[in-house]
């Protein structure tokens, strides 16, 4: 048996008569819904839309960099393109996507709750997100912005005539959506757990989302105030970031990175949660060292607040301060290492099957390890002098964000797709896409490490011709990568109508979310579940299924 999918007999299986998807019909029933699952779907649509915009921008970047001379776009257009790419990918895709889509859908199901603690706020935060996104899209339509995603002052405040205020406003608004989502999750995880669902019975997914939420709540307000100051500086010139008035442009970076460094862990922790679930399920084992993995999530969350100035090593911070921040960065890398090894060890004496989610997971482990270790290169002070602001950094963060988080996201989407829609995606196509993605990714971004060490600066519209060969490789890889993304988008849509009916637990996974019908009822559980087993207890599950005829719907 090469797959663990045990689909119900196709001749008898039917989708459940009532589920959250068909309880009510009509646009209004979606736009005013308070059901966390429907809100998750709406977030999925929103973030996919933004991913496509960001992806189109990436395509433009790579096309432009095919030749060294800046043939395709004008210099300021190119700057607008990569700024839009970074802004949208970070603030409107990767930060919201995993928490707001998978987190929203799964957290209540996994802890045995009927909904998140504040369903109305949940809906409101979707509207905030979309409002922020609309501002951002309007900003792009009305001229765009060329600050880079980092809004470096005084460039952004005094030297650009583009739509900086609108861009900052969009992020400001969307930031409150993050805050409310995080707040909602924390309260839900603390207060809404089913009887018997103790902290150490929680799936590791919940632990990592908990850490993510803490970062949302504590870090996001700081970027809100930083961006508010940028807007004020631009509009009325308050002077706090203006060196000519006695302000300090570096202060902006302190405030910006105080958020944005923790935010990069917002972009990886949920992925780590997903990986824990998938590894456990496809090895049919409890995650090796549950407590260590759980606490390392918390540790990453806490330590992430101590390292932000590693983005400013050469920017003029005190050298002593740089020393402290470098040390803390080394420390924050350790919990990630623990996780990687614990997942690997989970496979030991497992019974491993290689369905699509597992393939993505293996990809994640490899790519995140490379991305993380190159992060250590950058955390090393003397090395960072040479590497900072080059393509090495670009390669580093695409390895962790795209190779790591996007792979994890794909793993998660494939894993829970049957739960979300009640139907399977086409398995073999899924595997093909996973492999394409992995190869395309490496082809795109590995050459950038070399480019970076050779010294090619990032955010360059045109570059010295000797860097062309590696750039061509990278652009070629991006085409492969694009196929790797478009394929799943297509077959996911296809599967909505034609996918095989999944049944409640196609992967034979042990989590609570798999013990209810797929797609679930609006109220999730007919009765409040009482939890008597540990997380990933496959022996318990085996017992259950042995005693029972699987029912669908």
């Amino acid at each position: 048996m090469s797959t663990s999918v045990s689909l119900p007999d196709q001749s008898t299986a039917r989708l459940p008569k009532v589920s959250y998807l068909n309880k009510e019909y009509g646009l209004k029933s979606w736009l005013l819904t308070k059901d966390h699952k429907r809100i998750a779907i709406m977030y999925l649509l929103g973030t996919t839309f933004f991913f496509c915009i960001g992806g189109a921008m990436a395509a433009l970047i790579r096309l432009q960099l095919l030749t060294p001379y800046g043939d395709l776009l004008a210099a300021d257009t190119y700057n607008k393109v990569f700024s839009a790419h970074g802004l949208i990918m970070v603030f409107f895709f990767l930060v919201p996507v995993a928490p707001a889509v998978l987190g929203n859908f799964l957290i209540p199901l996994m802890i045995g709750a009927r909904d998140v603690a504040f369903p109305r706020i949940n809906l409101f935060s979707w509207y905030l997100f979309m409002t922020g996104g609309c501002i951002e899209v309007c900003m792009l339509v009305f001229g765009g912005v060329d600050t880079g995603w980092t809004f470096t002052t005084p460039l952004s405040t005094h030297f650009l005539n583009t739509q900086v205020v609108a861009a900052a406003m969009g992020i400001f608004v969307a930031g409150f959506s993050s805050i409310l989502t995080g707040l909602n999750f924390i309260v839900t995880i603390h207060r809404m757990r089913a009887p018997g669902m103790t902290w150490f019975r929680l799936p590791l997914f919940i632990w990592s989302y908990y850490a993510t939420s803490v970062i949302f709540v504590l870090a996001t307000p700081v970027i809100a105030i930083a961006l508010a100051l940028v807007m004020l500086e631009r509009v009325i010139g308050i002077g706090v970031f203006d060196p000519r008035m006695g302000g300090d442009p570096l202060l902006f970076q302190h405030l910006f990175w105080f958020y944005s460094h923790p935010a990069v862990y917002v972009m990886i922790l949920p992925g780590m949660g997903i990986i824990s679930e998938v590894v456990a399920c496809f090895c049919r084992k409890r995650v090796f060292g549950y407590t260590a993995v759980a606490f390392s999530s918390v540790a990453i969350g806490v330590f992430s607040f101590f390292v932000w100035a590693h983005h400013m090593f050469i920017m003029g911070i005190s050298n002593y301060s740089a020393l402290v921040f470098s040390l803390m960065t080394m420390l924050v890398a350790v919990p990630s290492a623990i996780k990687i090894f614990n997942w690997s060890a989970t496979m030991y004496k497992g019974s491993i099957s290689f369905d699509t989610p597992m393939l993505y997971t293996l990809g994640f482990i490899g790519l995140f390890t490379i991305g993380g270790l190159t992060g250590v290169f950058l955390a090393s002070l003397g090395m960072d002098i040479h590497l900072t602001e080059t393509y090495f950094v670009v390669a580093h963060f695409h390895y962790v964000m795209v190779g790591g988080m996007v792979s994890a996201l794909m793993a998660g989407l494939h894993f829970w797709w049957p739960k979300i829609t009640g139907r399977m995606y086409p398995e073999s196509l899924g595997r093909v896409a996973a492999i394409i993605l992995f190869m395309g990714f490496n082809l795109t971004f590995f050459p950038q490490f070399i480019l970076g060490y050779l010294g090619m600066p990032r955010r360059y519209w045109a570059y010295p011709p000797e860097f062309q060969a590696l750039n061509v490789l990278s652009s070629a890889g991006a085409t492969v990568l694009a196929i790797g993304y478009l394929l799943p988008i297509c077959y996911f849509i296809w599967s909505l109508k034609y996918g095989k009916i999944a049944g409640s637990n196609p992967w034979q996974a042990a989590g609570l979310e798999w013990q209810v019908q797929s797609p679930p009822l609006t109220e999730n559980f007919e009765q409040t579940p009482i939890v008597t087993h540990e997380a990933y207890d496959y022996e318990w599950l085996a017992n259950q299924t042995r005693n029972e005829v699987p029912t669908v719907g």
Partner: protein
Amino acid sequence: MDSHTIAAQTAETAQLEHEHPSFLHHHFENLAQQREASTFGMWLFLLTEIMFFGGMFCAYLIFRNWYYSAFVAGSHTLHIWAGTLNTTVLIISSFTMAMAVHAAEVRHRVPLLRWMMVTILLGVGFLCIKGYEWHDEWVNHHVPGLNFSIEEFTHVNPAYPGDKPLAPDMAERTQIYYSLYFLMTGMHALHMIIGVSILTILLIKARGGAFTNGHIAPVENFGLYWHFVDIVWIFLFPLLYLISRHQ
């Protein structure tokens, strides 16, 4: 559904379920859970507020360190009586708000309405005094970006004859002080305005007895918010008004 995991509800939870007032949302097990959840949520929201103001305090600290004499001079132009009065007003309003929450807890409708009224009035009073001060600063050309002039700081301040006038370069830095002053008091006032508005809505609802039937969470959480805004002011007052008054 798996009947082994999902055991029937126990007698105990069923009993709690029994109390099922209209304001208990369907997804909560019981009132205690709902109330705790909302208070907890409110606290988390206040954490974000701490960090939001935290960014401003951070900026304040840095520039106060750098441009201390400009900050002193700026501080000396504020009306200390207005600041002290406003602190008093806010503290009293915090007290009245606490009393309003208490009235809701013991389910006394009329005292609840009265305490809320008083709190609103004090809040408005605070804003009026603040408005008066801002007007004064506008008249004195102290609003950065709009009508700022360093004139006053390069001369001796009659209220502080002991102060030396600032050299022009340091006098320029008073603008940073004022930027932070308007930023911080402005953000604080914005919170006050929002607070007064919400409290007015709560007051209208309270007239119909909405919060004296055991459903105190909105009043209680609003109280937390109001006290938090008070705390922000408790820090703003010494930081902005009381820099080196003895000079």
